[in-house]
């Protein structure tokens, strides 16, 4: 059990100001080795106050600006090491808001944003994820082979400090289904922690680039891979697996931050003892209550290879002491072979980070037939709903519903479509179950036409952001529908079979509207504004206290938008499309910077690096047909771009 920072209570605006001063200087304190964390916190706070007028001042006065004083409604507790000007955790804070309190860049001056430097990674594949910035250093993890590169931000960029190349088993490259992405690292306790495609979680010394520990969690020879970004909570590294369709038995695990030792593992299907369901488990809806539902909601032994991997984002509420993450589809089995709800696929978990025990669960797409993985991020916020402030999580699912869920109990408060949805007519809030449209069911050998959303989802892993200023969620979304079924010849491992051909195409609005970047009010389940995009929006989102939202497009536009109105204030164009997530940070000169990857790939962009044949609209699970024009407007790439207002 690690002595660790005492958990922070949910941060409201004024408290965050004070905390930031101490934390920003504590960076310097932490850089020195040998401080125990608890002592470091206390001493750091003291040093912070004393040193305020000296080393920290330039940074603090420019970077530390109070968010506006009214009720900032995000319990955006900061991970240890975080401050306004750093980015130590994938979603910025534990709540995964991707909101930065930096406000030097504003709606008024963002039009003057200029690219200051860039770095070419040398890998031309989908660059998902985001950089980290801490202690004056920027850290990026490339796609396979998952290189960790550190840049010295005190020098003109790119000033590469060191590179750590993990020895990744190339078998993993052959197994990864969709692209060999890496969704990024987390920083804590002087270590950069990330996953490799071949199922290692790796901790590297943030100062020197030397390996601290590496823990093998799976064998890529069995089809399992890892792509997700870990979350570090109280000395525990929370990770999950990928490869749900590859007959894996999905899991999440916690590793000891100091040693990499596995502390607990929770399976996502199977008997309660493997799923870590015990007397503390209190799902809100009755159909998720009962013994061993992770086996009884299947037939026979199918749960043993029930998929349901945890390849998405993890968030954490320190006050409730719960981590939240979702599970993927049960795709290894044809749906007709697995009647039943197939728990706990397409499920949002709330678990105790100490023990992994489940506290509640909510399954979004029982008996999934459309490939609607449930792994998208869960953003934590406190929102006024029907006159009462509720502690919620907000989740934009592949299945097209935007869920607002009480994060203490798992009760669904709001579930409204944020894109066109027709596989279900609605979610019944009394039972928590979707009300299915029978004509959108899918069966082998039957063609089901015009199913919305397509398998790639109304939104995939690309994360949304939440602004406590506007109380709006900023959502990268996709407007595609699909025909599912019919027969096409396939083969795997020398074995021929026929598969359901999935043809994806533009939803309502046509090819000029295959994507949308929208602002969403999660208290009411309504879109507030939207920016129509020609291609699905496959990048993540950043929103700042300066009132600016950033996102990127598949054909390479990087845009800054007014968070209140949706007006595009600035844009630039990259050599390759954007599937990564922008961040912001304070440089050593006290200025605010923006950083983002270019490098198109991921599922929707697979047509570009993979040189898929355009004359086959069914290829890459249908994604090719949806965006056959993409290769004509962008090309493979892989770069890190850094901007500031000049």
């Amino acid at each position, binding site marked *: 059990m690690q002595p660790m920072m005492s958990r922070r209570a949910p941060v409201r605006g004024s408290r965050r100001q004070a905390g930031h001063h101490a934390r920003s200087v504590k960076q310097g304190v932490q850089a020195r080795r040998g401080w125990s964390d608890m002592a470091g916190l206390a001493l750091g706070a003291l040093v912070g106050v004393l040193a305020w007028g000296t080393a920290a001042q330039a940074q603090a006065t420019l970077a530390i600006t109070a968010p506006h004083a009214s009720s900032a409604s995000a319990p955006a507790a900061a991970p240890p090491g975080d401050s306004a000007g750093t980015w130590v955790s994938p979603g910025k804070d534990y709540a995964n808001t991707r909101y930065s309190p930096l406000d030097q860049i504003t709606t008024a001056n963002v039009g003057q944003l200029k690219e200051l430097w860039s770095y070419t990674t040398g890998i031309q594949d989908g660059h998902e994820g985001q950089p980290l910035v801490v202690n004056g250093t920027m850290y990026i993890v490339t796609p396979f082979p998952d290189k960790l590169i550190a840049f010295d931000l005190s020098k003109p960029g790119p000033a590469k400090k060191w590179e750590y190349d993990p020895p990744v088993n190339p078998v993993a490259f052959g*197994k990864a289904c969709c692209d060999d992405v890496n969704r990024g690292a987390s920083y804590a306790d002087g270590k950069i922690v990330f996953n490799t495609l071949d199922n290692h979680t790796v901790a590297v010394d943030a100062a020197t680039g030397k390996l601290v520990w590496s823990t093998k969690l799976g064998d890529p020879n069995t089809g399992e891979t890892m792509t997700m970004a870990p979350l570090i909570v109280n000395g525990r590294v929370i990770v999950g697996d990928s490869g749900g369709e590859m007959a894996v038995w999905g899991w999440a695990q916690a590793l000891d931050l100091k040693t990499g030792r596995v502390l607990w593992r929770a399976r996502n299907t199977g008997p309660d003892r493997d799923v870590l369901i015990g007397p503390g488990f209190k799902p809100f809806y009755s159909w998720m209550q009962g013994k061993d539902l992770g086996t009884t909601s299947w037939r026979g032994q199918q749960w043993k290879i029930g998929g349901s991997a945890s390849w998405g984002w993890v968030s954490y509420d320190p006050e409730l002491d719960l981590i939240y993450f979702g599970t993927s589809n049960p795709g290894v089995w044809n749906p007709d072979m697995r009647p039943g709800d197939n728990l706990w696929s397409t499920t949002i978990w709330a678990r105790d980070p100490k023990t992994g025990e489940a506290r509640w669960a909510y399954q979004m797409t029982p008996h999934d037939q459309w490939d609607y993985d449930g792994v998208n991020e869960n953003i934590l916020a406190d929102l006024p709903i029907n006159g009462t402030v509720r502690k919620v999580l907000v989740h934009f699912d592949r299945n097209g519903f935007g869920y607002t869920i009480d994060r203490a109990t798992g009760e669904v408060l709001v579930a409204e479509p944020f894109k066109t949805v027709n596989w279900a007519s609605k979610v019944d809030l009394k039972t928590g179950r979707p009300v299915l449209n029978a004509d959108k069911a899918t069966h082998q050998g039957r063609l089901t036409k015009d199913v919305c959303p397509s398998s790639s989802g109304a939104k995939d892993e690309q994360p949304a952001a939440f602004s406590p200023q506007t109380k709006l969620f900023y959502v990268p979304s996709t407007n595609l529908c699909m025909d599912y079924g019919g027969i096409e010849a396939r083969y795997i491992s020398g074995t021929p079979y026929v598969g359901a051909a999935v043809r994806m195409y533009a939803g309502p609005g046509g090819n000029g509207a295959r994507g949308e970047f929208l602002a969403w009010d999660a208290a009411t389940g309504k879109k507030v504004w939207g920016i129509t995009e020609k291609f699905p929006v496959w990048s993540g989102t950043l929103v700042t206290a300066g009132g600016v939202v950033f996102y990127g497009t598949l054909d390479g536009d990087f845009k800054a938008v007014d968070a209140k109105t949706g007006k595009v204030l600035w844009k630039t164009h990259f050599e390759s499309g954007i599937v990564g997530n922008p961040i912001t940070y304070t440089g050593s000169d006290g200025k605010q910077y923006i950083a983002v990857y270019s490098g198109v790939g991921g599922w929707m962009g697979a047509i570009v690096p993979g040189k898929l044949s355009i004359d086959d609209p069914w290829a890459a699970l249908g994604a090719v047909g949806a965006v056959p024009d993409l290769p004509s407007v962008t090309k493979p790439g892989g770069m890190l771009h850094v901007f500031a207002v000049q």
Partner: protein
Amino acid sequence: MRVRIPGGAALMAITGLMLAGPVHRIQPPAAAPRAFRVCADPNNMPFSSSRRDGFENRIAELLAHDLRLPVEYAWLPQGRGFIRKTLNAGLCDVVMGVPRDYDMVRTTHPYFRSTYAFVFRASSPYAVRTMDDSVLRRLRIGIHVIGDDYQNTPPAEALAARGIIDNVVGFPIFGDYGKPDPAAAIIHAVARDSIDVAIVWGPFAGYFATREHVPLTVVPLEHAVDASGQPFAYDISLGVRHADSAFAVLLDSLLVRDRAAITGILRTYGVPLLPVTATRSAAGDERLTVPVAHSSPTQE
């Protein structure tokens, strides 16, 4: 005598001399091939292995020998994205076995046809012949699961269509890829009596069933297409990139020329063989009455 092959047009001319037929006037490939470059799985017997001892490896050697070229391999597990990462990445020029209707590549004419097959212990008190045999409702049935989001092999779909669900056990076709023959685990399970019958693609059945220490019976499925609509029988072709029409024509010539030798190789590996169908996209419920190969340790 080793013939140097200087260029595409010359290649076609030489081929024309080798074969009895006329030389085709086709756009030659842009550069002279230095090798017969094959995209293949390094650990997938009986098809292919890094030891080059699978039947696809043997057939590749045969064709390459015709062209006086060495065989080179781009190795990758044959999973999702295989074509994208190998053939379409330009790392190799031919895939040795794809369904003839496989749209991701340009296919040659098929060089063999096979079907899914039951595999069970010869000493069993039951025999399984068709998907409608009532005994299937009681037996422990093994099938390969292939990891292609919601798609499964035809036996899986046919069983589900009949409501045969609870007694079905899935064997990931990749198994433990770090060990040899990961797809064979299902046959080992039959031999060990962990399951009663496996329903697998014919070449797996014919090859591994003869290599177990207990006699196993292989019964190819009779119907080309199941009542549920699932095809059990498939014609298998070579596959090249869509643009490589000249190469496909060349390969077709070689397949005709080497038909007897190729069939001989397939028989050696115990592949259950059916007559290749005449037309593309052969469907329909043709009932096959051709006797098919039964493999047991007493044969071959």
